[in-house]
């Protein structure tokens, strides 16, 4: 029987109301002290940069969050029942101002730790929550299906052998952590999810406090408890998370009754606790404000104001905490929502689904200020009018990857699937590092990038073995081999023929084991 540490799961469904931590894919990981692994452990120059993604679910009303002062009359005209009075907005650059509920973020702005990026979107926007969310998470064109997430592709580039041979001496921790029941598309890699999740904040505290969910006093409850006990023993990441959490003993106070703050408090705690995790993802819902987003008596109050205040208070407390913990140099964050809302408000004191909207990038290292022009609002906006985008959201990702997460210029296209404009959000500093080749390399190709053909080498434990080529959408293009092998290393040739240039994936399936290698075809 294999030793317990030979196995790793990035899900932790142990003994709480619902699993405290769940993740993308459970897998077999090989012992970190196996010979092949030792040979693959290369020294890694660590960037200790962390990126925090805050998802605002529902489609945040950008026009009431960053109020256009320049076109104020047109704004009032379009939104007579919900507009924010000019004398109440918190001034930014004289052309726009923040919603009055966002004092905390305004403070960060004044300290140069907040970047407001105007009118972020993409061509041919989708107005469906699900589809628009998928577009934002996969970073695909709106008319293309991509079944991987942008951060998942980044992590797959950064840790190409994952999950085979993880965790290991050079990467002991989850690559990404999300708070929520399932890891989102953002963290989906070409084969497996690159992240794990903590289903909710109370389960996080149950985990670190060792609280078990009661099971019924029946034979079934007895067996359930037994299985949960074993489950908790197999969750190595639960241990590292717990250890990291326990290392952080003091934090600043966070706003109460603010679930985003609760989540960010955990993130700060884990960063300070020393996790090498690169990406954190948290979310905050309720932005689908079709009706009653403001109070009739005072449009600066109401449900949307409350949401914005919570976002603002939470991020401010988070920044204060990072500073208090001495890790604010290491952390950059951003907000996003799947879309903004319609320019013209509706008759129920709300707004319907729209397109481009502003977002925030925050942190000690950001180049503060407002990026972009104040959106132009038509003088007589109709229900059909939407804001055009000024910045493609993928430019923000690409800039973060390049200047904050230190992805080499040449590899950026493989992750982002095409080239995007760099934006002045954060200064690149101290970047350039080799890829983490720890773990067990099971499939690779040469040359890469390739133009015509490339040789794919793979290692099988014997038995039925499959090597297939998939495109960026996950569609299988070719099965290069699909038969019985004796254990060993083999190679097959992929003739790309007339396939267009772009990113392709070679997937190895050997019974229960799989690994996916990203390849890039150039003209």
């Amino acid at each position, binding site marked *: 029987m294999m030793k317990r540490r030979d196995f790793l799961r990035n899900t932790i469904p142990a003994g709480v109301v619902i699993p405290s931590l769940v993740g993308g894919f459970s*897998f077999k990981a090989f012992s970190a002290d196996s010979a092949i692994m030792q040979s693959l452990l290369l020294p890694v120059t660590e960037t200790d940069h962390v990126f925090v993604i805050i998802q605002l679910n529902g489609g945040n009303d950008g026009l009431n969050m960053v109020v256009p002062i320049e076109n104020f009359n047109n704004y009032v005209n379009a939104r007579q029942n919900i507009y924010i009075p000019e004398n109440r907005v918190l001034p930014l650059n004289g052309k726009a101002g923040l919603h009055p509920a966002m004092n905390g973020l305004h403070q960060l702005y004044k300290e140069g730790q907040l970047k407001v990026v105007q009118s972020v979107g993409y061509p041919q926007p989708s107005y469906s929550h699900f589809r628009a969310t998928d577009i934002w998470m996969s970073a695909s064109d709106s008319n293309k299906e991509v*079944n991987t997430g942008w951060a998942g592709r980044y992590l797959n580039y950064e840790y190409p052998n994952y999950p085979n041979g993880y965790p290991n001496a050079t990467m002991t921790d989850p690559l990404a952590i999300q708070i929520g029941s399932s890891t989102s598309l953002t963290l989906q890699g070409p084969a497996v999810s690159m992240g794990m999740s903590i289903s909710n904040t109370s389960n996080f505290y149950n985990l670190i406090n060792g609280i078990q969910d009661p099971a019924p006093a029946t034979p079934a409850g007895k067996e359930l408890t037994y299985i949960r006990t074993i489950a908790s023993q197999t969750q190595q990441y639960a241990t590292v998370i717990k250890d990291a959490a326990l290392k952080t003993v003091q934090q600043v106070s966070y706003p109460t009754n603010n679930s985003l703050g609760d989540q960010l408090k955990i993130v700060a705690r884990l960063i300070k606790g020393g996790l090498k995790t690169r990406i954190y993802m948290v979310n905050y819902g309720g932005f689908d404000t079709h009706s009653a987003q403001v109070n009739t008596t005072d449009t600066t109050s109401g449900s949307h104001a409350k949401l914005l205040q919570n976002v603002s208070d939470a991020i401010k407390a988070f920044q204060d905490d990072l500073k208090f913990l001495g890790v604010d140099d290491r952390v950059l964050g951003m907000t996003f929502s799947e879309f903004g809302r319609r320019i013209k408000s509706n008759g129920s004191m709300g707004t319907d689904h729209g397109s481009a909207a502003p977002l925030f990038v925050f942190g000690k290292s950001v180049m503060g200020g407002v990026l972009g022009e104040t959106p132009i609002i038509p003088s007589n906006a109709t229900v059909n009018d939407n804001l055009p985008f000024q910045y493609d959201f993928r430019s923000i990702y690409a800039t973060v990857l390049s200047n904050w997460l230190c992805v080499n210029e040449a590899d950026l296209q493989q992750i982002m699937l095409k080239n995007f404009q760099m934006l002045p959000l954060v200064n690149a500093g101290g970047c350039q590092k080799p890829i983490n080749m720890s773990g067990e390399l099971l499939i690779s190709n040469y040359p890469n990038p390739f133009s015509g053909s490339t040789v794919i080498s793979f290692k099988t434990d014997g038995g039925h073995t499959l090597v297939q080529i998939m495109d960026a959408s996950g569609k299988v293009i070719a099965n290069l081999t*699909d038969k019985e092998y004796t254990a060993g290393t083999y190679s097959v040739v992929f003739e790309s023929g007339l396939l267009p240039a772009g990113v392709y994936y070679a997937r190895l399936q050997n019974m*229960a084991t799989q690994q996916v290698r990203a390849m890039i075809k150039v003209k």
Partner: protein
Amino acid sequence: MDRKSFLRAASSPKKEENLAIIAPPPNGGLGEYKGAWTENEVIHLLKRTMFGAKKADIDYFKTRTFLQSVDEILNPTVALPDPPVKEYITPTNTTNSDANIVQGAPWILDPNTDGTVNFLRRQSFKKWWMGVMVGQDRSILEKMTLFWHNHFATETNVISNAQFIYKHHLLLRSSALGNFKALTKAVTIDPAMLVYLNGEDNSNKAPDENYGRELQELFCCGKGPDSLYTEEDVRASAQVLTGWRNDALNISSKFVESRHDITNKKFSAFYSNTVIQGQTGPNGGEKELDAMLDMIFATQEVAKYLCRRIYRWFVYYDIDDVVESTIITPMADIFRANNYEVKPVLNALLKSEHFFDILAKGCQIKSPVDLVVGLVREFDVSFPPVSDYNSYYGFCNFLVSATANLQQSIGDPPDVSGWKAYYQAPQFYEIWITSDTLPKRNQFTDTMIQNGYTFSGKKMVIDAAAFILQLPNPGDPNKLIDDLLKIIYRIDISAASKTQLKVDILLGGQSSDYYWTDAWNTYLTNPGNTSNTNTVKNRLRDLFRYFMNLSEYQLA
């Protein structure tokens, strides 16, 4: 067989310490269940008597009465499956090639002594058996066939001869709901068993006690406090069993008079000091065997022992004094009164208030076969037809290796005692779940809901959207989760958890149920809308994966 390792393991039970729950065993006696016959009871019956509760089977039995349903479960009508076929490629360097058999034709009638060919055929047999389980009819037959394999445990890698293995399997299968005493006799002189427990080496000149011992200790009398056979009984039974030899060419066994011990065999007080007269002649061996089985089956213990095994297979492992006296003893009485016919015993148990007691539900930890075959059946994973034998056996092979990976290799239990989960106190079923196997279980379910398994260009994967189409109201995310869990879980999760999973997974963080409903309805009316279809499928994938990763999924 070397039994030393088994004995060692048996003497060092491991028990997790931190179990706070004191669970009483199920209530109720063997009297007929008079309660409601709802989906909940149907699913309980199906999960215990078949592999997984398939929606179509649930619906079917809901239209039958309780008694009709159990009767139908107990009376399979299916014919014997077509035999395994040659789906392997015979290597060119074999000493005894079976190249004469065309691909896709049965190999069972072709004798072969080559080790490689027999290895390939053993694999072929296991894949075939897996396929038969996946394609099971609406009856208890497959669970009982596996029950007998666990009871009369043999290992294919010891028997080696694939034809013997197949013949042995057919014996268990065809007798699965028949007479236990007759089956015991047939197994005793079955070629595979004669190899496995050295019966073919047992002669008057060199007695081999292996089978004689297991016949009493593992197959008939057990090791209960009232099983008082002696070492002398073991020796005497070995003498009775001398003279049986195998005939590989005819795939059968035969009695060789000259190797038989014709002295009188004296048994202990446990067997009422019976003396079995030594018999001569070509039927001498069989006459003595019959006499010995009459003697063994005359004890009270045989029926009790087998009823305990049946109870642990279908209900729960914990047999306390109350269960012993109110369930096991009356079951054993029925067994004896019916001359060891199995069906009346199962009939009494499966119709009992005890079997349907609330405390009897959900307390089995799925065996690996139950998990793997149950998943494929419950989610109706599409399988190529048997006629496409290459793909069919390829898929079966993956499932065989999955169960073996989880420590239940069909055809190759750990030893003659069968799988520990059914006898090793105090853990029993819990032995299936270790820090090694639990992650592998999750890995298997993850694979089946995510990438699936691709073989020969065909993919075996759970189609979650097709599955929920069978549910009454898949467009309502609350009902979808309720109805899904009703089938795949036996212990419900809290309403708060369901709400969170609904919002986090099905609604993608949105607060209105409408968004799932809308996406689902769009999927139904316009499946060609690929982005919406992907949305629906990815969310279902995440939901199913999540549920299969929870500990609750391991219970049946």
